[in-house]
């Protein structure tokens, strides 16, 4: 045991939370995969169990390597990632494989794994923001020196994601704004930007609602209508999700006894939180929410402890991004938010989402591990 801990650095609570979420993920995905298994593997649910377990295993390897690397290198890496992400996003937008008529995916050759380019872009942008914000701390309240150079990459990335994946773009935009707020950018600029954003969104919605486009815009239109009209006929997913929650009760139906998995779309991904509540009840739901809040809390602690602004912003930015996405996913499942396609980080099935989540957690752990070292050095120097 001690020998394992020798290699594992950083915040142990985050390690524990990640492991717990991964275990829950295996349990719930294995249960809710049945429909998919029948569709593509002739009822062979083990196929998905193994596949999912392997993906999680690879994820933890990534996490391990990411946390071994000193977080100061991520400052440079963020730039490289960003330069890779932009052309990839463009490429995906033009040629990507379509799931739910959204061009979000690229097939990675050789391992034949679909890959959501926005996951990469998201990670890159948050790291990049942490870099920029920490670098410009001296003139942080200035418009030209700080706000503009930080805002431009945000707009480019979000703008490229937007056509294919509105919710990810919006989420990333909000995360960026939050990060900018944390990084002490002038609040007045942020508020005015939000105002402009809201107006633009209003115009956008107005255009969408008055258009008769099919395809992506059609999907958005339907979703907005569904949310506005509540119990509309087409609001099948939400209804199924609510049924799952209602029938789950306080302690749930028990592992593997979900019936709604046969009706819920993506019960192993978008609506996995509904499946959790159905099988493990409100109790299971509270546990999941708490785990994410603990994760964020540890992010806050790490951020506070980090000796340098970059580490501090990197840790809080990434942990917030993860937890925010988790909250959005769960909010969709309980019908607090309109239906979006956000997976529950680390819990939902899906290769790249898990890997990028693991990478992000690895980076947070790196901040935690290496800032401890730096602090030790400072103490010994002193």
């Amino acid at each position: 045991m001690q020998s394992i801990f020798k290699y594992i650095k950083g915040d142990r609570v985050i390690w524990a939370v990640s492991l717990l979420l991964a275990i829950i993920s295996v349990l719930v995905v294995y249960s809710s995969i049945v429909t998919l298994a029948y569709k593509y593997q002739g009822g062979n649910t083990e196929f998905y169990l193994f596949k999912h377990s392997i993906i999680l295993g690879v994820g933890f390897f990534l996490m391990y390597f990411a946390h071994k690397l000193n977080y100061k290198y991520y400052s440079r890496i963020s730039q490289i990632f960003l330069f890779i992400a932009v052309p990839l996003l463009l490429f995906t937008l033009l040629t990507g494989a379509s799931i739910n008529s959204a061009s979000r995916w690229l097939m990675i050759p050789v391992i034949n794994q679909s890959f959501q380019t926005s996951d990469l872009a998201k990670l890159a942008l948050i790291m990049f923001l942490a870099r920029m914000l920490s670098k410009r701390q001296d003139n942080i309240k200035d418009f030209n020196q700080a706000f503009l150079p930080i805002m431009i990459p945000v707009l480019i990335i979000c703008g490229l994601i937007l056509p294919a994946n509105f919710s990810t773009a919006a989420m990333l935009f909000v995360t960026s704004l939050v990060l900018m707020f944390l990084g002490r950018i002038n609040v007045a600029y942020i508020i005015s930007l939000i105002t402009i954003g809201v107006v633009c969104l209003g115009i956008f919605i107005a255009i969408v609602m008055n258009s008769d486009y099919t395809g992506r815009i059609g999907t958005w239109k339907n979703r907005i209508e569904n949310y506005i009209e509540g119990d509309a006929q087409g609001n099948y997913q939400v209804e199924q999700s609510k049924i799952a929650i209602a029938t789950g009760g306080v302690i749930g139906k028990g592992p593997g006894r979900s019936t709604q998995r046969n009706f819920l779309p993506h019960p192993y991904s978008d609506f996995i939180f509904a499946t959790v509540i159905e099988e493990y009840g409100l109790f299971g739901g509270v546990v999941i929410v708490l785990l994410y809040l603990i994760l964020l809390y540890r992010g806050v602690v790490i951020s506070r402890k980090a000796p340098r602004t970059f580490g501090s912003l990197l840790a809080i930015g990434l942990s917030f991004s993860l937890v925010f996405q988790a909250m959005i996913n769960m909010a969709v499942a309980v019908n607090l938010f309109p239906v979006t396609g956000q997976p529950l980080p680390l819990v939902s099935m899906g290769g790249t989402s898990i890997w990028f989540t693991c990478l992000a957690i690895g980076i947070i752990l790196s901040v935690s591990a290496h800032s401890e070292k730096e602090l030790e050095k400072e103490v010994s120097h002193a």
Partner: protein
Amino acid sequence: MTEVKKDIAWRVYLLYFLVCLFGLAIIGKAVAIQLFEGDELKKKAQSLTLIERNIEAVRGNIYATDGSLLATSIPIYEVRFDPNSGALDEEFFYANVDSLAWHLSKLFKDKSMAAYRKSLVHARNNGSRYHLIQRNVKYPELKELQEFPIFRAGKYKGGLIVHQQNKRERPFKLLAARTIGYEREDVLPVGLEGAYSDVLSGVDGKRLMQKIAGGVWMPVGDESEIEPEDGRDIYSTIDVNLQDVAESALLKQLQMHKADHGCVVLMEVETGEIKAIANLKRTSGGGYYESYNYAIGESTEPGSTFKLPVLVAALEDGFVDMDDIIDCGDGSKQYYDRTMYDSNYDEGGWGKITVQRVFEVSSNIGMAEIVSKAYGQHPQKFIDRLDKMSLRDPLNIEIAGEGKPYIKNTDANSWSGISLAWMAHGYEVKQTPLQILTYYNAIANDGVMVKPRFVEKITKGRKVIKEVETEIINPRVCSKETINKVRKALEGVVESGTAANLRNADYKIAGKTGTAQIANKNYGYSYNSRVSHQASFVGYFPADNPQYSCIVVVNAPSQYVYYGNLVAGPIFKEVADKVYANSLDMHEELKKQENFLASSAIPYSKHGEKRTIEKVFKELGVPVISKAKDEDWIVTETKDTAVVIDERRITENLVPNVVGMGLRDAVYLLENQGLRVDVKGRGMVKSQSLQAGSRVQRGQKIQIELS
């Protein structure tokens, strides 16, 4: 630096607080869903995931009186195919469609491989999800089908959709087809299937089904279902052997005379049980087919067979006696504007003969004279007498579609001066063959008229639910004296009258011929146009102690031979002969043989169950030396003076030794040990493939050879 950190710190805490609120909101919403919308949603969930399915009750069987199966339900399948099943990809489909088409074509032999392939590909391209492969697929065919390429790829990928239905099957096909009948939607029910529909159909059950992955519905536990109550079985009174004789005798005669249709009914005198009922109708192709229950449904003018009730009436009312002399003249007699003829008009008529003789030779004029003399002044009295003998009432049998009897009343518009004379030989009245038979049966049954019945008992499994009782329609159609007189007359018909060709040494038949002209819708009875006849014979046997009554009616035989004795008589005789041959109680008793076993050697026995074998030997008075103690199973050895019995030990979970046993005992023993038995040959078990005394493995196969 610390300034910056502090500035960041409060922002971080604020953010954390907000996220915590967000988390709280999520939990709150989940709780709200459960609390406020819970009940409604749960109901909705049930309607989506649970469904109450009907479980079709198995329809009861119809058995013949000897237990032969006359009608039963067998499962039959409708096979469909989902060529656009989500998991059935293009490559897999086209790689296997040729092979599938070849197999389908070979199995059903109805379409070429190319035609099958074309329809399958067409269905796939059309986006069909429910392509019909074949209806009425039998179980063995289905088993084969499930192994075909594509189909064998599993429930989802294979796209095979199978619906089970129950189909009614008659193992004896045409035999008594109309009487067994059928029940279909939108068609009036026919025969026993229709009459006993309630009893046969049972009560459908209900089962709660739950939807699981792959669109499959699975039953939810056992407690929530209503078990289907399977239909009861019916034992009909029909005797398959007699029915077969009746049907083939009828067929032979119909073919010989190219008759249009005919029927035979055989009834047990005392109980009214219908032992055989055959109806055949000529098809356009010249064959014969049971397409209508003439015996029950066809009400026609019976002709001379109706002379019996007429004679009974006259005797009963005391107008004539059998020895009275009647003047039948020269064979023709004028009644108002119509002339009545006797069959021997060409030969100069019967002249003056006794009433007995009038009946025996079936003189129309004689009968008309009797009735005119007796009832000329009070015709209504005649009608009332017939009415008293229940001839105007339908039998009200359970099978639907009985023809209505008709006897013209004096107040009818068409009543005329000749009505009485014509009714005397069976015109201006209408009776179905079964109604006439019922009347004759009453005469045979000492005046007790019983209702014909088709069902013996209703059973459930081996338990008898209801024994169907014989119903009495009329406890006394006439006096005992009258019965004795007319029975003598009926015997006379066969002894020396119109049906002398049926006379026979073994047993006596009593009966009456009938040759009626059938009212043709287009021509009436008109003599110069084509006339069709109805030849019949009705009677009972043995005449001294009537056991069975029988009627044969043949309609529209060829122009040249149409007399009842020649056309219908032989059918009657064939059926009667068969019944006689089968019924030991009708034979005169043979001299009893005393101790016929004593003269033979000690008999040989198979090995088997101790109790049974010992009982048999005891009954037969065979000396037994028993060495067996409490074992249930024994081996026997035949010695000079006795049979020696020794035990055969049967031990749980060890393969028993069944060599030397009969098939029944051997199979019982082996299957009780959980073995699957494969039998070869017949007789006594000669060898067994598994060593006796070796350990049993459940479900293992054992072959036994018999010789």
